[in-house]
C-alpha cells in the first residue's frame, strides 16, 4: 500500500500552515516528520488523518481519497483524550466497534493488545486515573486495534516524562516491525532512534527528504579537535598558515581544525604540533555532526 501526499496546502486565515507539500510513503517504512514548533507538522498529520480539509491538493491511499480509507489508518493524537468515565477496556471496545470490528473479534483481540501496551492490569481502571504515559499507550493500542496499514502519530512522546517516553519508544520500536509508521516530532534523538527516513518541514514546506545515513555522510566534515594548554595558544596562528589547513578556530582550550583531508593530513598535523612543543591533552577526529546540528543548520541556517 502506498500513501501519496500531493501538493497539499492549508491556510488558517492568512497564515499558511502547509504549502505545496508532497511526499510518498511505502509499506514497511518508518518516517519521521521533523520540524520546529509551528512548522506545520501537526496540521499535516491532521490532514493525513482526515481531521482537517485541505485547501489544495489531496492525500491518497492506494489511489483512493483518504476519507474513504479510514479503516486503513490508525491515528494517535498529540494529547489522546478519551472519555474519562470509561475504562481502558470499554474505550477499546468503543473505538473498535466504531472501526467496524465485530464484538467476537474484540473479545479475542482486546486483551492481547492491552498486554502488548502493558495495560493488562489497568484494563478495568477508569481513564481519569491514568497518567500521560498510560493514556499515550492506550492511544497506541487504539491505533493498532483495527490492524491498519498505516499508523500516523502526532508527537507521540513529546509530552511525556523520561519514563513514559522510554515506554512509548520501546513500544513503537516493537510495532514498527509490523506496520508503516509516520510520526512527527521535534525531539531529534527520538526520531533518530526509531526512523530510517526523515522529512524535514519548515514554514509548511518540505526542505529535506532523506535517510539517516545519507544525511550524515553528506554532512560529515574533515574536522579534527585538539585540546591544548593555554600556553600554546599562539600555535593556532601557525596552524592556520599550513597549506592543508582550511580553518582553525579556538574556543577555550579546544581547537577545531578543518583539514582538506583528514586521513591524509592528520599525522602531519600532529607532527607539526610536536615540533612546536605543543602540549596535547586530547586529539579527536570528528566522526560526524550530530543530527541535532544538521537539523539546526537546515532549519535555522542559511
Amino acid at each position: 500500500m502506498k500513501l501519496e501526499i500531493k501538493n497539499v496546502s492549508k491556510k488558517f486565515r492568512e497564515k499558511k500552515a502547509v504549502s505545496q507539500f508532497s511526499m510518498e510513503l511505502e509499506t514497511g517504512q518508518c518516517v519521521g516528520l521533523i520540524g520546529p514548533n509551528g512548522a506545520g507538522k501537526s496540521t499535516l498529520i491532521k490532514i493525513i488523518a482526515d481531521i482537517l480539509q485541505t485547501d489544495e491538493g489531496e492525500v491518497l491511499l492506494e489511489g483512493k481519497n483518504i476519507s474513504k480509507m479510514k479503516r486503513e489508518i490508525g491515528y494517535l493524537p498529540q494529547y489522546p483524550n478519551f472519555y474519562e468515565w470509561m475504562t481502558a477496556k470499554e474505550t477499546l471496545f468503543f473505538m473498535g466497534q466504531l472501526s467496524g470490528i465485530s464484538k467476537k473479534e474484540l473479545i479475542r483481540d482486546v486483551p492481547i493488545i492491552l498486554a502488548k501496551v502493558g495495560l493488562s492490569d489497568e484494563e478495568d481502571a477508569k481513564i481519569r486515573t491514568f497518567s500521560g504515559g498510560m493514556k499515550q499507550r492506550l492511544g497506541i493500542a487504539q491505533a493498532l486495534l483495527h490492524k491498519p496499514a498505516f499508523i500516523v502519530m502526532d508527537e507521540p512522546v513529546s509530552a511525556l516524562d523520561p519514563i513514559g517516553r522510554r515506554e512509548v519508544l520501546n513500544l513503537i520500536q516493537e510495532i514498527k516491525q509490523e506496520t508503516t509508521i509516520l510520526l512527527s516530532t521535534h525531539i531529534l534523538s527520538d526520531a533518530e532512534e526509531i526512523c530510517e527516513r526523515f522529512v524535514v518541514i519548515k514554514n509548511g514546506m518540505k526542505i529535506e527528504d532523506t535517510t539517516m545515513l545519507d544525511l550524515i555522510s553528506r554532512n560529515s566534515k574533515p574536522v579534527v579537535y585538539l585540546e591544548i594548554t593555554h600556553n600554546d595558544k599562539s600555535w593556532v596562528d601557525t596552524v592556520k598558515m599550513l597549506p592543508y589547513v582550511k580553518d582553525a578556530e579556538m574556543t577555550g582550550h579546544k581547537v577545531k581544525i578543518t583539514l582538506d583531508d583528514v586521513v591524509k593530513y592528520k599525522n602531519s598535523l600532529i607532527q607539526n604540533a610536536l615540533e612546536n612543543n605543543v602540549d596535547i591533552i586530547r586529539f579527536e577526529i570528528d566522526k560526524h555532526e550530530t543530527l541535532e546540528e544538521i537539523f539546526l543548520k537546515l532549519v535555522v541556517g542559511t
Partner: protein
Amino acid sequence: MNSLAVLMKKEYSQVLNDFKVIWLPLVFIFLGTTQPIMTYYLPAILKTLGGAQGISIDPSMTEQTGGQVLAATLGSQFDQLGIMIIVIAMMGLIQSDKSSGMLAFILTRPVTVSSYIGGKLLSNYLLVSISVGIGYVASLLYIHFLFTGIELTLMITALFCYLLWILFCLSFTTMLSAVLNSQALIALIGIITLLICRMLVGLHPVLDVINPAGMSKHAMNLLITGSVGANFSINFFATILWVILTVMFTYHWIVKKKFQPK
C-alpha cells in the same frame, strides 16, 4: 447503522454516568406538580398570609378545570424553567466532544457524521421526552386528585404536540452546541432565542404559523378547548421543517470540519 447503535449505547452510558437520567426526570416531576398544587392552595395561602385588606380573590380562579391546569403546567412551568433546564442539560452535547478532541478522534474512524448526530439526537431526545412525559403524568396525577379529570386521548395528543416543540428545542441547542465553543454562550443564546419564540406566540397569525413554539400553544388549546388552534397542520410541518433545517446545519458544520479550533 452499526456505528449509530454503538454511539447511542455510548450516549446512554454517559447519561447514566453523569446522573442526568435521574435528575432530569426529577426536575420535570417537580415542575409538573408545582402548578396544580400552587393553583389549588394559592387561595388558602393568600388567606393565611394576606393581611392586605380590600383584595378579594376571583372565585373563578379556584374553579379551573383539569385541562386548564395541565395547560398552565405546559405554559408556565415547562415552557419557562423547563426549557432553560433542557438547554442547560444539553448545551455540552457536541461542544464537550469538540473541546476534548473526541469529535475529531471519533471521525478519524469510519463513522459517518449522520450516525454521530443521529446517536446524539435520538438518545437525548428519548431522555428528554421521557422526562417531560414523567413530569406531565405527575402533574396529571395531582390534577386528578385536586381538580377534574382529563380525557385520555386529548391528553396524549397534547403531549405529542408538545414534544414536537421540545424536539425543536433539542435540535436547536444541538446546532448551537456544534457551532459555538463557549458553554455560557450556548446557554444564553439558546435560552433567549427559545423564550423569545415562546413569547412571540399569539402576537401575529402569520408569525404563529412558522413559529415552532406554536406547537406548545396548540397543545394548550387542545387541553383547554378540546381542539387545536387555527393553521395547526401548517404549523406542524413548519416545525418539522425547522427541526430538519437545524439538523442539516449541524451536519453541514461538522462535515465541513468547521468545528476545529483556530
